[in-house]
């Protein structure tokens, strides 16, 4: 249920009517069934694999975008953060902040 890990598609082939292929997890490779992503997957893409099956293609652009947003958020200066909080309409927490950056130590 949970152990789905991301890997890079190396190649794809037909195995008696089933779309199979090789996936590379950071240097370790395995045969995986890609039938559920047929038509939407190609070599070089990234996919989530669970028990030998690719169950979704990773949207790399989305991933990059949201990750960058996360990184920025953790580096936002106080003013920007306050503005964002005001826009979202949520109350300010009592953080005990003394006005310094509300970011990662």
């Amino acid at each position, binding site marked *: 249920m949970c*152990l789905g890990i991301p890997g890079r598609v190396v190649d794809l082939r037909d195995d008696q009517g089933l779309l199979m292929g090789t996936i590379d997890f950071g240097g*370790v490779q395995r045969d995986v069934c890609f039938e559920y992503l047929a038509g939407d997957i190609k070599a070089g893409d990234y996919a989530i694999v669970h028990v030998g099956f690719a169950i979704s293609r990773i949207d790399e652009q989305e991933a990059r975008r949201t990750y960058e947003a996360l990184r920025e958020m953790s580096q936002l200066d106080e003013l920007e953060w306050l503005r964002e909080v005001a826009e979202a309409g949520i109350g300010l927490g009592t953080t005990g902040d003394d006005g310094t950056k509300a970011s990662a130590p």
Partner: protein
Amino acid sequence: MTVASDLRSVLTCALPHPEGERVQLGHGSGGRLSAALFRDRFLPHFRNPELERLGDGAVLHLSNGYGSGTEVVFSTDTFVVSPLEFPGGNIGSLAVHGTVNDLAMMGGTPQYLSAGFVLEEGLPFDLLDRIITSMGEAAREAGVVLVTGDTKVVERGKADGLYVNTTGIGVVSPEFRPAPDRAREGDAVLVSGPIGRHGMAIMAAREDLGLRTTIESDSASLFPLVTRLREALGDDVRVLRDATRGGVASALNEIAAASGVGISLGATIPVPPAVHAACEMLGLDPLYVANEGVLVALVPSGRAEEARDALRGHPLGREAAIIGRAVRDHPGMVVMRTGLGGSRIVDLLPGDQLPRIC
């Protein structure tokens, strides 16, 4: 004591029911079951101070009864790994390295080995030749001489091809006596290299998991590393342990228990990327994966960097790192600080880890 690098016991492990009446694979994995088996079934019949130290080997005084004698380290290990050949070595080289390392961890200079073989009827000679050739090379490289041995043959279907026991002996001096119970609060904990290679190489060599990788076993004699530590720190090398079955986690737990200290680990322990990936795939924790060419060392905190640099001066220790320290808190327990500032116990597993889906 046995080293169960047997793949089957890497993959599977049994837990006993309280009424469990039989030996299970988990008893050979180096975790809690193994400890209990030894303590409850063997130790009562062989009580002596040396055995009860639970070291990798025994330090003995051999006396001629006339006032002169010498001190030696004596150790034995049995190898049942399957498959017999794996990337980075085979059961033969493993058998040499394993016992040489046990002697070295006690401060001994490995000198002589014996080897006892159980061969399965039908074992191909070319396979046997490769194993023995490998053994000979490993012995020469490690500077040990095989001086006596024995061979038996059993029927087809037993012995997984080949089992081998090696027993080793070497001199030891009073000035260099690392022992598992010598750790003190404040000591630095070091690891000599990246972890998880041997266990994952074995796992990958197993066909039915279908993993393809370049991971190789790190099987090697650790004596050169120990020598460097000895030259740099002498008797300040308080504890040495090779992190074999049960991995770094088990070795540190044994040390914490024997010394009555807690061990606190920081987050960065070197793991090769491919080991990391293979562990993620199977849901395994590299801390518990067997190594055959990695040691952990405890030295006074003031000499930690010296020790690390001494290790790094040798190819086998290139990635040596200080990974934690012995503490007064939680004696007998190993605790790792997480990147979040939380903490988690790194406990002894009952047996081996199982690959999982979840």
